[in-house]
């Protein structure tokens, strides 16, 4: 008797388990599709523009577009770290502008009144100082957020204005022209940062690739990466389990600032001139790339791969619309629609993931072993 009821119970349980497993599989497939949505969007973009214009899918155009993407991608990779932490960095566009202005100021010569001479630092010194300025601006953000407990949105909004103000004050509102340097002063080569082509690819693309690799390694292979995901996922829990939360938070802003400064150098070099208003609203493009790439603004979720694809979607969309000849007003509207679509799909994915996990848990818990 007891054996019989046991068998019957096992049979119904088996059926339930199978159903749950099937559901889990279905949701897994759907989840994969959602996971790859940014890639799919990029593929669709390339296919559509390739179809509409002969000059879209050429090697030179792809390289040119990737070069345009690189500027935003570098900002977005820094932004990704901040967003993983659950913060936001609105100051990157201004830091970008400030970095260019500092480069312009230094390349134009530094007056050392004590010695009565004008020093012309070589380009590598200029680069290091500019990156240092960006890092320092990030440090200010970090200290405001960690020590003074200012909400990241407000702290970086403040530094957005301050950095822009400093850039305007330093340059007196003027553009620094002709940053090519002077051979007699031994400070040439600034133009190479933006226009050099080692192995046939522009330096900015190389830089983007190296940075992406470095950030990937940082996130996946180092304790810092685990701390960062933990801090963004649940800050209190991370803190209680011994993660140096304050240090992690400060560091991400510093990295983001340095990335912004690097982007500023690339732009100033490409134009061989630095305008104090460069980079206005670039922070929004960077945030958009991170969001399209599937990161959660609440922190703890997001990948380098996704962010890069997000940057490519935005960049290819913008350039593609120019090549096809769509009006600027439509370009703006379409960009907005793409961002909203990306987030809506992201919410969908979250739901599938939770249901898929629940179904998989049911299947696993009842599995007779």
């Amino acid at each position, binding site marked *: 008797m007891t054996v019989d009821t046991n068998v019957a119970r096992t049979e119904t349980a088996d059926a339930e388990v199978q159903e749950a497993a099937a559901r889990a599989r279905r949701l897994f497939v759907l989840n994969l599709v959602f996971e790859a949505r940014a890639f799919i969007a990029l593929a669709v973009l390339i296919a559509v523009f390739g179809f509409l214009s002969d000059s879209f899918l050429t090697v030179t*155009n792809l390289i*040119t577009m990737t070069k345009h993407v690189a500027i935003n991608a570098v900002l977005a990779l820094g932004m990704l770290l901040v967003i993983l932490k659950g913060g936001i960095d609105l100051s990157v566009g201004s830091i970008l502008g400030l970095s260019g202005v500092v480069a312009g100021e230094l390349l134009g010569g530094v007056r050392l009144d004590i010695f009565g001479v004008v020093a012309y630092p070589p380009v590598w010194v200029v680069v290091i100082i500019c990156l240092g300025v960006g890092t320092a601006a990030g440090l200010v953000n970090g200290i405001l957020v960690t020590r003074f407990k200012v909400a990241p949105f407000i702290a970086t909004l403040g530094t957005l204005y301050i950095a822009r103000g400093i850039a305007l004050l330093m340059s007196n509102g003027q553009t620094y022209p002709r940053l090519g340097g002077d051979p007699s002063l031994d400070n040439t080569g600034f133009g190479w940062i933006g226009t050099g082509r080692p192995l046939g690819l522009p330096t900015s693309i190389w830089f983007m690739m190296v940075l992406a690799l470095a950030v990937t390694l940082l996130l996946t292979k180092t304790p810092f990466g685990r701390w960062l995901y933990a801090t963004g996922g649940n800050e209190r829990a991370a803190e209680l389990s011994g993660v140096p939360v304050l240090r992690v938070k400060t560091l991400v802003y510093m990295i983001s600032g340095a990335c912004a400064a690097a982007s500023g150098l690339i*732009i100033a070099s490409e134009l061989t001139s630095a305008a104090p208003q460069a980079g206005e609203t670039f922070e929004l493009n960077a945030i958009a790339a991170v969001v399209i790439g599937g990161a959660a603004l609440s922190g703890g979720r997001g990948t380098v791969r996704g962010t890069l694809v997000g940057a490519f979607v935005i960049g290819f969309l913008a350039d593609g619309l120019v090549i096809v000849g769509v009006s600027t007003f439509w370009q703006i509207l379409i960009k907005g629609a793409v961002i909203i679509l990306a987030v809506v799909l992201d919410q969908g994915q979250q739901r599938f993931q939770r249901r898929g996990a629940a179904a998989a848990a049911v299947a696993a818990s009842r599995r007779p072993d």
Partner: protein
Amino acid sequence: MSRFPVRGRRGRRIAAVAPLLVGALFMTACGGSSDTSATSTKKSSDSSSPAGEEAGGLIAIITPSPDNPFFKAEADASKAKAEELGYETSVASHDDDVNKQSELIDAAISRKAKAIILDNAGADASIGPIQKAVDAGIPVFLIDREINQTGIASAQIVSNNAQGAQLGAQSFVEAMGEKGNYVELVGKESDTNAGVRSGGYNDVISQYPNMKRVVQETANWDQQEAFTKMETILQRNRDIQGVIAGNDTMALGAVAALKAAGLIKKVLVVGFDGSPDAIAAIKAGEMHATVLQPAGGGAEEAVMQADKLIRTGEKPAEEKQSIDCELITKDNADEFGVFARL
């Protein structure tokens, strides 16, 4: 919510008050900063003398954002002229924000300015604030941009954008030998001057059937955007002999893209504004021409007319006055400084 009425209500109250507080904070911050940034200089000892008769008192100078060298030149020139004539000055910028402009005008009224020199923030939105100043007995002299109403401002001194665009286009067409493919980079499409310049260019160029505009794209007056768009345009079509841009910053962005593509020697670039950077590019042979808007000239003229009104009570004969633009090419590039003839 209803289960925690007190908490809910307080929460709501805080939520309602917080933005107000922040807003107030920012407003005072802005007001404060513009006041401190407004460089006041004392020249005359008896600033309390009643309006009329003699020079002296405050002239308020309000322009758009100083991060554009053109507006900065305008502000600098009017400040220098007013001080030369014995006035105190206050210089402030409204950043193309109508609300901020209104606050600055209020400030000028409460400081009992003798005149306001204004490069306004919007052809329609500025009418009200200007009326307010005039009602308070302060004459307003508009420079660079017009408003859509006459009879309020004492003068509207505007450089003739249409004439300037035609000058630039004429030189562009001649240098191209009246034939070829060209790209037009248009300024911010919501800005009146972008449309006027584009119209002026096309009025001239459309008379030459062999001149073919292959792309018209907006680059929002911005150098980096012009660079990116020009690079993209060159991907589609390298058979381009000319670029005509709505301002110099966009022209210089196109120059950078053409340089990167190795086409700078084959493509003629024409800009607008007469900025020092563009003049340097013309001297270096990278740009063909630009059109000088005499920013300093218009601003000085406005101050002189304001001075005349204050001293003699005599209004300018014409409210709408236009100042002609000048063409700058390699031949005369040495004769120009910062937005003015040397």
